């Protein structure tokens, strides 16, 4: 699959090839927070979850910064952790929704700003896919990663990434009413 960077700026900020041996955690944080939050939103559909996931991931990175900074690719590590957290976050969101449904808590502060209904609908369709497919689509389009890079983040083979991607695209093309080219 051809991977297309969304924007040049995003590509820079979201790069998982950041060399950080001599870069402080603060720099890493400032570079990674926003793309992580966007990725988290793509897979969770919730601003609350997105902020939580990005924050939790970066806190965990901070806790182990001495070790993580030695890794060849810390960006890969934090993305894998974020996606793992996103999976376990789902149950918590269900319980939270129950609390919100009781009318105990205002919800006007939790919208992701200026995400139009159309964009939201596209990601909603993505999130209906099986989890791995959601992850490969999010990493490909939100992060602009190649299949090799996605495989590295998810800890699976490139072939698996290819399979998940192909199936995801077929499903999405149908769900979104788009013509799938062969």
């Amino acid at each position: 699959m051809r991977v297309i960077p969304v924007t040049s700026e995003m590509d820079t900020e979201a790069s998982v090839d950041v060399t950080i041996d001599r870069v402080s955690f603060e720099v890493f944080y400032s570079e990674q927070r926003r793309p992580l939050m966007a990725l988290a939103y793509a897979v969770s559909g919730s601003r609350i979850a997105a902020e939580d996931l990005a924050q939790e991931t970066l806190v965990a990175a901070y806790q182990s910064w001495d070790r993580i900074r030695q890794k060849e690719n810390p960006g890969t590590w934090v993305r894998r952790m974020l996606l793992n957290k996103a999976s376990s976050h789902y149950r918590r969101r269900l319980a939270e929704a129950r609390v919100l449904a009781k009318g105990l808590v205002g919800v006007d502060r939790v919208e992701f700003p200026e995400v139009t209904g159309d964009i939201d609908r596209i990601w909603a369709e993505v999130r209906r896919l099986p989890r791995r497919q959601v992850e490969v689509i999010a990493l490909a389009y939100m992060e602009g990663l190649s299949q090799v890079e996605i495989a590295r983040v998810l800890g699976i083979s490139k072939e698996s990434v290819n399979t998940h991607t192909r199936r995801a695209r077929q499903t999405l093309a149908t769900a979104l009413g788009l013509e799938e080219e062969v």
Partner: protein
Amino acid sequence: MKTLDRTLERAASGVSEASRRIPDRAWQARNSRQVRRALTPLVAALLVFALVGIPALLLGSDRPDVSSGVTAPEPNPEGAWTGQHDEGFTLAGSLHGDDGPTFFFIGRTLGALLDEVFDRDFWRGYAGSTTWPPTDESGDLNVYEDGTVTVRGDKVARLFRLTHTDGPFALYWTDAPGVEILMVSEASDIAELVRRAEAIDYSPDLEDINLDH
């Protein structure tokens, strides 16, 4: 494919642009050194609680140990309870029987905690409460299964979004910057916490406790 690519690119671009407008509440007024400094007393408070509360927990009690200085809690309609340690620790939990989850919010007295890190007027307005700390007739706060904490009253506010991670306790960031809460879940986790506390000779330093799970 091109049509789908363009659609997904547009969706990604929309989310990316939107993310730029979300303020960095947790970090914008602090750096990592500040985080560490703010957390240290909380970790200490957590460890003290573990030493106070764990006997009751390990014995299967669903209430704080009154004899150790915790006042008898008052159950509220949600099944949560709160207790106030006379040395200034607030305990709150939601117990759901042997098969259900058990969560514990641990920290210093809510008001004292927030006083330290926040302008109390902010919280008074946020909670819509005329008292400090914000209270309701059944307790200071409720902790739900997912860790959501609410303060009940005329205008119930969500103060914290606690995080239940896979680890023994979690660091959490509120909607407002500067408040971190530690939470443990499950008695076994508390036991593990005590073990770690002993291992570090009761002088916790953030770097000595591995929160990475």
